[in-house]
């Protein structure tokens, strides 16, 4: 069994290290490096970042940031449904669609001097 945690932001691929445990919440096989221990038992960085009782570290922070980037696309036809992500990614990321956050600068007219 190998670790099923998806690494990367743009090019996602499984960690591939030998698995030593499984996430008590999503069931993914995990290596030592990607296992966070907390009140609900072992968890992957993604689940640990979303639940209380887990220590935050670089991996949980990264997982939370990635979730934040991809959540606007969650329900849209495209990412998960178009086959860009693996089924594990889709399951992890398919959440109700959120409107794309627009910053203040969005009203910028490139031609304005």
């Amino acid at each position: 069994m190998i670790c099923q945690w998806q690494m990367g932001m743009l090019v996602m691929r499984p960690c591939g290290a030998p698995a030593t445990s499984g996430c008590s919440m999503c069931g993914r096989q995990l290596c030592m490096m990607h296992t966070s221990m907390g009140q609900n038992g072992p968890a992957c960085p993604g689940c640990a970042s979303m639940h209380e009782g887990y220590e935050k570290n670089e991996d949980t922070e990264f997982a939370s940031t990635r979730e934040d980037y991809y959540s606007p696309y969650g329900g849209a036809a495209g990412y998960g449904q178009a086959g860009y992500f693996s089924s594990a990614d889709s399951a992890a990321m398919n959440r109700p669609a959120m409107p794309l956050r627009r910053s203040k600068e969005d009203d910028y007219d490139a031609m304005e001097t």
Partner: protein
Amino acid sequence: MTVKDLTPAARAAVEQKTIGGGWDGRALVKLMAELERWDNMAEARKARAKKVFIGGIIGSVVGFFLMFVAASVTEEFFWGPPFFLAPLAVMIAGIRMKKAARAIDLPNELRISLRPLLRQLHQDLNPDEKIKVSMNLAGIDEKKCTGTKNLPPGRSKSLTQSAYDEDLCDIRLPLADGSTAVLRMENQYLKLEKRYTSSRGKSKSKTKWKKLSTVTTMLIPPAPIEWAPARVEKLVNRANERMSFPQKDGVTIARMDRYYKFKAADDPPGDAVHGADIVRMFVRLTAMRPQAAGGSR
């Protein structure tokens, strides 16, 4: 913190105000972290210099009147000038401190845009290939004006616009799937100087700055592929984003440009594009790849 406390690579970057060549991903992230600390120190010095300068101005004004009071109370002219000259010296020291802090300052894009970007993309990098970097850290140089023009003054006496260009960086990130992510950042600073007559008949001037930032992200696939722009079409803000697919060496490149505008009075704007915005641009480009070109499966 002095230049001597920096590693040789960071010292070279601070002294030469440029970063170039091929870099290992981890080494570049470390360098950015070091330069961020340096820039934070420079920002703190700038803030301190500003406080000293403002203190000097207030002291000089108060000291000017105290000079006469002291001279009349003591009935000796000798006791007056120190009240004015001491804060004046503080003000001059503040100007010099500000100049010195500006000389060692690095563009804020380093802290706000590039370091967060590299931190978030470091897992995507191909460890066997080097990141090609060409970064200009000199910042805006007011001596190198690229053009001045007189704008219609309206009710003012004159309105002059001066432009300063800054090619900030060109970074090529080799990704783990064989494709290359390219980031280009350019800034154009516009200085607007308005001269006008106040209601009391005094001649006055006002300076405003605009910073127009252009961020270009490109994704170059290792082999020709068919992009699927329909996936992100609705997620492109046409007001400030442009999507294009230029051809180069038989390969179609996905390109996204985004424009930003920042404003400030008196000094050039210190705002910069957030690294998260650039990651979002790359996320949209990668989403247009067909699965065969290196999706996660």
